[in-house]
Every structure is written in structure tokens, then in C-alpha cells.
């Protein structure tokens, strides 16, 4: 095999990709959606966090000054009603978020515990009752000449943050990066889809592959050149996408979003390097899978149908955490799933070195297997001539 010939095929394919305006527009479009995605998510979070969070609590009793102070801190406003029927009606009409019915010293809290937002309000209402109970207890102890600390603070404790990057803003920024990286892997798959159909089945359909084979080139040189062209295009796309995501987050944290005000977003060089290596592996695997899937197709259209499934695999890691599924030994062996999950782990500072090593080693094995597979495919007359 001559590297010169591989380079000539690579040059030919890169020229084809860069001069095909339709494909290039699609690729550039995919890349520039990434920063928009970051801005959109940041503004969405900001809207959620800085919105009007005041809740209305219905009660059947008078609120004293001390209770009012506690309720204000918990963003509660109160409305007084005379009976349970009136409170119930007000809740159903949406005038109040929950209500407390007081009989002597017993407080009955009525809230929709299955509704997530109502449940969060309910926790704040419980906090109000606990804080008020503590206030009354401390007052009683003081009236009996007992220091409340001797009762409530028998042991002393303090929580220390061990992850230096876990400031509130960094947590959100990392969360946005996790989603962005899943999008970047999807972008790699999409770029592979855009390029592969034309470079493999498209060339067969036009008859130019037959012409290429008449040149003094080996079929392995042709396919490696094509593989490198698809890989490099998707990798460059992924790196630009990643750089744009980081730059967008910097801009968001510096200027625009209130949530990130007065905070400095930082990402360690180590994380960046591991991310780039994982994106490189993802590009190599997806490019190989793309060629393997498209090579048997007889036409560009058929190749695109075969490649459609490729776009679904990188999306899976986005949904696994929603079902409580985390990186484990088995998942570390599955290509594309492992890359997505480990990128999530890296940005939630929850990385397991064993899983990381398994992912790297298995990725290398998959890449070698894919290269052997596609070079065998391109020796088959059935594949080359669509027999």
C-alpha cells in the first residue's frame, strides 16, 4: 500500500466535499447550531431560575410577625380563608398553591405531592413549619434559662466542597456542556451521513469507482483515502463545534445571563484533551460504520437509507441518565454509547478510570475491526460492482 496514493484519494475526496455546496452548507449549518444551542439552554435555565417563584399558601389562621418573617424568606405569600371548604375551593380555582388547616396546635398541610412543582412548594411549606417549630422551641428553652445550642447543637459539623469546579454556575455550565457534547457526537454522525453516501454508493452509481479501479491504485488505498476524508471532515466539524460551544459558554458567563453573573467559567486542560480524544474515537468509529453500512448500497438513495440508523445510536446516551442508567462495565464496551456516557461522567466530575480505559481500549479494537471489514468489503466484486 502506498501512502502517496492514499493521500491522492484523500485530496480528491476532500476537494469533492469542499466544493459540493449542498453538502458543505449542511455541514456548516450543523456546526453553527451548536453555539445557538448553548445560548438557548443558558437563557432557558436563567428564565427558570430567576423567574417569579413566589407561591401562595392558603391558611385558616392569623400569621404573626415571626411566621411572616420565615414565610418571606421562603417566598411565600399567604391568604386567609375561614373554612376547609373555602380553602379547597381556592386551591381548585388556582388561587393558592397549597393550604394549611390549623386546629389548636395541629397544622394539617394539604398539597399535591405527585405534582413535581407542587411537591417542591410542599417541601418549602414543611420548611416553614419546621423553622417555626424550632423558633418556638428555642423561645421556650430561653424562657427556662437553657441555652438552645446545648439542646440543638450537641455535635458540631460543617460541609466542605471537595470538587473545586462545583460552583453553582460551573454545575450549570457543565450540564450545558454535557448536552452540547451529545449534540456534537450527533453532528459527527450527521457529517458522516452527508459525506459517506456520495463517496461510496454515489461513486458507484456514477460509474467513477470503476474508472478509479482502472488506475494503478489498490482497492485498499481507495477505501483508506475515502475513510480518512470522511473521518477528517467529521473530526474537524466536531472540534469546531466543541470550540464554539466553549466560546459560547464563556460569552454567556461573562456578559449575558444573570444566572452566571460575577462567576468565572473554567474548564481544565485535561478535560479538554480527553474530550478531544473521545471525539476523535467517535469520528473514527462512526466513519468506519458509515462506510461499512453504505458500501453494500447500489445507489446514493439506498446508502442514505442504510445510514439513517447511524444517527440514532449517538442519541442513546442522552436518554440513559433519565432512566437512572449510569456508566457500567457492560456499557463501557459498547461503542458510541460508552463515549457519550463517559463524556457525561467527565463533566459531572464522576469519572471512573477503569471504565475510561475500557472505553479507550475497546474503541481501538472496534476501529481496527472496522478498518479490516471495510478493506475486505472493497475487495469484494459484489460490493464494487453492485452484483
Amino acid at each position: 500500500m502506498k501512502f502517496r496514493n492514499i493521500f491522492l484519494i484523500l485530496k480528491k475526496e476532500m476537494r469533492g466535499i469542499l466544493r459540493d455546496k449542498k453538502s458543505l452548507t449542511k455541514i456548516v449549518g450543523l456546526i453553527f447550531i451548536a453555539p445557538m444551542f448553548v445560548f438557548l439552554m443558558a437563557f432557558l435555565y436563567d428564565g427558570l431560575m430567576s423567574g417569579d417563584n413566589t407561591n401562595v399558601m392558603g391558611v385558616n389562621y392569623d400569621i404573626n410577625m415571626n411566621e411572616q418573617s420565615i414565610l418571606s424568606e421562603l417566598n411565600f405569600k399567604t391568604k386567609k380563608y375561614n373554612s376547609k371548604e373555602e380553602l379547597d375551593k381556592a386551591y381548585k380555582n388556582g388561587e393558592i398553591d397549597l393550604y394549611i388547616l390549623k386546629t389548636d396546635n395541629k397544622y394539617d398541610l394539604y398539597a399535591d405531592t405527585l405534582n413535581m412543582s407542587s411537591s417542591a412548594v410542599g417541601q418549602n411549606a414543611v420548611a416553614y413549619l419546621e423553622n417555626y417549630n424550632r423558633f418556638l422551641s428555642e423561645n421556650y428553652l430561653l424562657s427556662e434559662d437553657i441555652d438552645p445550642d446545648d439542646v440543638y447543637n450537641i455535635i458540631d459539623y460543617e460541609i466542605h466542597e471537595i470538587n473545586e469546579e462545583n460552583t453553582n454556575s460551573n454545575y450549570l455550565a457543565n450540564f450545558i456542556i454535557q448536552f452540547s457534547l451529545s449534540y456534537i457526537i450527533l453532528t459527527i454522525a450527521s457529517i458522516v451521513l452527508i459525506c459517506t453516501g456520495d463517496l461510496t454508493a454515489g461513486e458507484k452509481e456514477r460509474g467513477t469507482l470503476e474508472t478509479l479501479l482502472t488506475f494503478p491504485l489498490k482497492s485498499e488505498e481507495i477505501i483508506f483515502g475515502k475513510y480518512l476524508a470522511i473521518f477528517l471532515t467529521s473530526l474537524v466539524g466536531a472540534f469546531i463545534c466543541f470550540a464554539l460551544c466553549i466560546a459560547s459558554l464563556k460569552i454567556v458567563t461573562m456578559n449575558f445571563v444573570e444566572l452566571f453573573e460575577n462567576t468565572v467559567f473554567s474548564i481544565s486542560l485535561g478535560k479538554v484533551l480527553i474530550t478531544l480524544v473521545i471525539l476523535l474515537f467517535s469520528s473514527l468509529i462512526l466513519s468506519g460504520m458509515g462506510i461499512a453500512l453504505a458500501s453494500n448500497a447500489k445507489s446514493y438513495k439506498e446508502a442514505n437509507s442504510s445510514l439513517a440508523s447511524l444517527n440514532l445510536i449517538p442519541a442513546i446516551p442522552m436518554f440513559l441518565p433519565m432512566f437512572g442508567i449510569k456508566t457500567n462495565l457492560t456499557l463501557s464496551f459498547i461503542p458510541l454509547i460508552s463515549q457519550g456516557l463517559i463524556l457525561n461522567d467527565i463533566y459531572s466530575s464522576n469519572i471512573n478510570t477503569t471504565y475510561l480505559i475500557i472505553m479507550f481500549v475497546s474503541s481501538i479494537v472496534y476501529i481496527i475491526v472496522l478498518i479490516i471489514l471495510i478493506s475486505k468489503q472493497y475487495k469484494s466484486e459484489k460490493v464494487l460492482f453492485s452484483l
Partner: protein
Amino acid sequence: MIEVKDVKKKFIKNVSKKKKIEFYADNGITFDAKEGEIVGILGPNGAGKTTLLRIIAGIMEPTSGEVVIDGLTYAKNETEIKNKIAFLTGNTKLYKDISPVELLRMCGEFYEVPNEVLNKRIEEIVKKFNMESFREQKISNLSTGQTQRVSISRCLVHSPKYYIFDEPTSGLDIMSSQVILDFVKEEKNNGKCILYSTHYMEEAENICDRVILIHHGEIIATGSPKEIEKSTKTTNLRDAFMSLIGGVENEI
């Protein structure tokens, strides 16, 4: 000299999910072609012409038999043989996003033509095929006639000794076909050897020194058009072919 020695090519065709049939696209083809000669490979669609030419061009392997070109075989001297051959099919399109000059340069690089020689040769080819006015235009913007000239010109870039043309005039109008036919005659006069496959019998009659009639993967006649017509007592190659296969009824 091109020597085709008892070449057989077997294919397996899936008739249904469970049933497969084996058939020979070429079954024991033997002939040779010398420098300064146009040898026509004639036969109807499915006769085995394209498979035979692909084997001669080294892009398909025969099931048995061999192709020897100037004493060299593909098993041992693939690169040397491919450097001597130019292959053109009527179905092949060109890369649409490059210019004729870029295409010529790309082909020259594949054949490892030294840069200085390549530059000179490109200029000669551009002049020879009157491509000056569109030399830098994208191929997708060229007319059918211009595209045809570019197609042929790329075969010349490495000064091949042998040309293999697989139905090059298929689907072309009279003017575009004539460009190819003129080129074939000219290269013959330059001492080159040309294998010319077509199912247009009249075309072969006009340009070929010798024809090989193929039917169902086997040679049914070989010789000059006149010799074949004489032996079959016909006045043209079309009738000669029909006479040899026993008429259309025999086929249907």
C-alpha cells in the same frame, strides 16, 4: 500485445431467498489483439462483453484463465499493466465539481506522471481537443459534447499503449459519437491497440479491423467483418450475427 487465454468468469445469482444459480458470464474466451489494430468485441446486452473488458482492464479477476499484456500478468505486474491501459465506458460520468484541467492533473498524478511531463501533456491535450475555452470551467457546466471530449482526453494523460472502450458511444448523438470514432481511428494510426466493445454492429463494421462475436459468454465467430459476412453468406454484421445464433426466434 493483449492475450486473453481461456478466460472464464462465474457469477452466483440469487433467484429467490433460498435459490441461487451459477452461470458463466464468460466461458472460455481466447483471443489476442496487436498494436495498430482495432478489435471489436460485439454481442447483445448480457453477452459478457463488459465482464470480459473489466477482466482485461484488471478490475475483475477471472474465475480461471489469464490475461497477458506484453508478457506481463496481473498477478505479478498489476501496476505496470495498468500504466499501459486506458479504460473508458459509456456509462461513466465525470466528477462534476472539478475542471477539465484538474481532472487531467488528478489522473496524471494517479499514473505517477512526473510533474513537468504532466504540465506539458495537459497543454497538448487541451489544444488537441479544443478545450481552451472551458479548460477551467466546472465539468457540471459543460455541454454533452464538451464533456465527451474531456472523457476521452483523460485517457491520454499517461500515453497508454492499449485502449479499452466499453460501449463508449452508448446514448450519444451523432456528433458526440463521431468525436470518439475519430479519436479511435487516430490512435490506431498512431500504432495503438484498441479493444472496442459495442452492440452497434454498423459502427463496428466501419472501424474494426477484426471483430469477436460473443453470445452467452462464448465466442461464436472471429475475423474481419468481411470474412464473417462471407462465411455466413450475409451482407452485414447484423445479419451475420443473427445467422450465427439461429435468428431471434431461437433466442425467445
